[in-house]
């Protein structure tokens, strides 16, 4: 087995950060906040977080914040829970959570919780268990889980549990490894993993590995280069 070409990965990420004008970058500029998180986390894992200009990144992140407290995917874009988590995660990576108005961010997220415990992505009301995970993860980082109804959040996620042990985006939604990561993560953060049938789900997840060694997201689909992480043994 070869070694990870760490230096090359670092160079690649730094080059992507600078590249803003090619077609793909322009087409994806609305999710730059996510991309930044993924890139910076990778650098951190490789021990190279210091190769970026912290102040530049932090001030860009803060420029993406709205009056509502939420963050957009880039400057001028509307706030959404997806980018709010990425923003908080980036600041946490740099140990700069102190620049946040924690109350403001917390309120933004708390207001997105619905009566049934689910979370909307933004004021326009799309509901998805991904957003439940995002809310719980974000508030966990900020130590503000007490600002939402955790019990209801958990019971909503449990209502999305399927008969193959997996989880979908909404009640009745098909199990999908990405959704499962979010739901299992949310249940782990809230100490609620006992709701999962570990054997059943574990088996389903293991079946995602196909002969080539890659992982697919659902049964009878092609393997994807989207690594499916999950917190299970």
């Amino acid at each position, binding site marked *: 087995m070869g070694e990870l070409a760490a230096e090359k990965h670092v160079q690649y990420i730094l080059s992507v950060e600078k590249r803003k004008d090619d077609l793909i970058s322009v087409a994806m*500029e609305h999710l730059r906040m996510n991309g930044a998180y993924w890139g910076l986390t990778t650098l951190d894992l490789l021990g190279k977080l210091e190769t970026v200009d912290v102040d530049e990144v932090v001030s860009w992140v803060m420029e993406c914040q709205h009056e509502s407290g939420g963050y957009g995917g880039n400057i001028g874009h*509307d706030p959404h829970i997806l980018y709010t988590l990425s923003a908080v995660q980036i600041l946490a990576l740099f140990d700069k959570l102190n620049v946040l108005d924690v109350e403001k961010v917390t309120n933004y997220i708390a207001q997105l919780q619905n009566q049934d415990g689910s979370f909307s992505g933004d004021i326009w009301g799309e509901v998805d268990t991904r957003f439940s995970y995002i809310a719980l993860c974000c508030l966990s980082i900020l130590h503000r889980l007490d600002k939402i109804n955790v019990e209801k959040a958990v019971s909503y996620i449990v209502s999305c549990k399927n*008969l193959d042990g997996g989880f979908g*985006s909404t009640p009745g939604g098909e199990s999908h490894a990405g959704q499962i990561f979010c739901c299992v993560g949310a249940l782990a*953060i809230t100490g*609620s*993993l006992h709701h999962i049938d570990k054997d059943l789900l574990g088996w389903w997840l293991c079946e995602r590995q196909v002969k080539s060694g890659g992982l697919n997201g659902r049964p009878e689909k092609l393997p994807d280069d989207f690594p499916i992480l999950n917190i299970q043994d």
Partner: protein
Amino acid sequence: MHGRPRKDPKPEDAAASVAKAEKLRSLQSQFLSNHHKKIYTNEALEVSAKLLEVNPEYYTAWNFRKLAVEHRLSQSDSDPDSIKSIFSEELKVVESALKQNFKSYGAWHHRKWVLSKGHSSIDHEMRLLDRYQKLDPRNFHAWDYRRFVAALMNRSEVDELRYTTDMINSNFSNYSAWHNRSILLSNLLQRKVQGFFPKEVVLNEEYELVHQAIFTDPDDQSGWFYYLWLLDQTVKADAPLLVSSWPARDSNLIILEDQCLDDCALSPFNTFHSDSGTFPLIVYFNQAVEGVNSSTISVESVLNANSELTWKPLSTNNSPAAQVWVTYLNYPKVDVHSEAYPVEVSIGHSGGIISSSGFHYSHPSRFAFKVFARPVKTPIGHGGDIISWQDGNFALYETSPEEPNPTISLDQLNIKDDNEKTSSEWRAETIANEIALFQELLSEISCKIGKLTLARLLKARDLLLSPCANKMVYSEEVINLYSDLRTLDPPHSQFYKDEHSLTLLQQITSTRESLLRYCFLHGDGTSSFIGNSMCLRLNNLSLSRMGSIERLLWVQMLDLSHNELRSIEGLEAMQLLSCLNLSNNKLCGFTALGPLRLLKSLKVLDISCNQIGSHSIDTTRYLCSSPLCHTEEIDWGRDETVTGDVNLANYWEAFVIFRGLSLTQLDIVGNAVADEKLKSFLVKIVPTLKWLDGGELH
């Protein structure tokens, strides 16, 4: 982009790409400008429509369109035609966006938003869905949208079920269709909708359907997962049931405060050493339940007033629900051999015990046992001598025929009414048929999921029959299947190993004869085996996990050394455990010892030669209560004083596990984490400790 190899662009393509990028950029800036200035003119709408056509992931544009709609609605004069045209325009924009990317979350949500405003041509939506689902029957956005529309137009679940039948018949390999079928059918069965009751008839039809899928293409997973669900529907008991207890039904429990046993007639299976003045009463259910308290379980005896009893759930993560619950009863101090103190336990006579899935405990049942106390001659000293686990200290236990059977189960307690009887007959028959079918299938092809399914069927069969037969007829075959599977399917060998361990333990604990082979008396190595120290020795069995614990509640001394245990889940139920040997296993972290925190009687623990501290990733961390999952608070400030100069943050896992235990003997050598610092830390937080790694402490 999935599935497409990366290539360097050709120069002409590169130039075109730059031009496209510039165009897109200017479109996006123009859009943002309109959005921030709240401009909702036709031109502005055009810009956003163009943008969404090429880049439907640009979510702010969808927000803009919603704002524009609201703006235009407030301006228009409620003229139904103009309202209609506003919405139609939106739907067109969605359709063109979906052409670009029919998995766009933003596009689908916008459509739902429009529809929820009341403008709906439902037939049109269904036709659209048909088109999309023909293009890609696995598109979960389409299925989700379908569910949304069906709810909006109150389409019956029966009709939707028919739709899944059509989809499945046209292509068996449609996991999405099978999944939706399972949801719809669950709902219809649960609500006992006309035509879907009794469930046996419905399930028989489903078996027919899924057989076709499986036998057409045994390698396709879709049918198999559905089959697993069907099997679960067939076999599972919805309502919680009491599975076992300690003391066991009809047993005569003798409480000994003595160390010295002069009465050979006493059986180790129903004696209990205690010097605390109380003994546990343990109830073990077939699934996690809540609501166990002195109103829902009544314990009648002269030893305690029922109302005083508090029941505790044995959950490792502070959850209010658990499969096993315990309370403590007093026992009398006597001067002479006591008479029997009868205890009667009634459960289910008043409602309140409810499973995590919402089913009530509904079978009122009773069981009784008797308690005898013995006078104290030589009180048990604190700490006592060091316990050695060496082979020479054990002798196989010789039993007598009059001995109570430790493997008795409580299934007979569960009264079956007529409905239940036909149900269980149907169950047995269905499983038998399926077993025959799969044995035939597997004689022709060697198919991994087929073998696994057969193993599951055989286990189900044994479980259904077990109350009466108390013997595992198929366990050999099941064990062989799992061994086959480990060779056939190496990536999943850990799972098969776990299943193998569970089956082996079921086999061992299924009859008195088989269990007794593992029961040994423990002594100090001299010829006399004093006392009642019976040890269950389950070492060297390649166990990767524990099971059948409902049959092992009586165990006080347990040797699980030289196995492959990564976790000891379930062990928290063994409330009588005072000596436990887990050495030479594969425990990777202190968090894996979580269940031990609930074993208040544990005095002697050997975790030497494991892998604690060898791995940077602790895979059991989130399975136990801890500060990381917000279910455990460590008061870092206050607890510092207890631990002195040691940085608590370095050893919080050990702290959480060991602080509540009153261990007298601990062995920890042979773990990467066990250095002098840790050992002195442990000595500080476990003040009762007398022996550490074989050395006496002072």
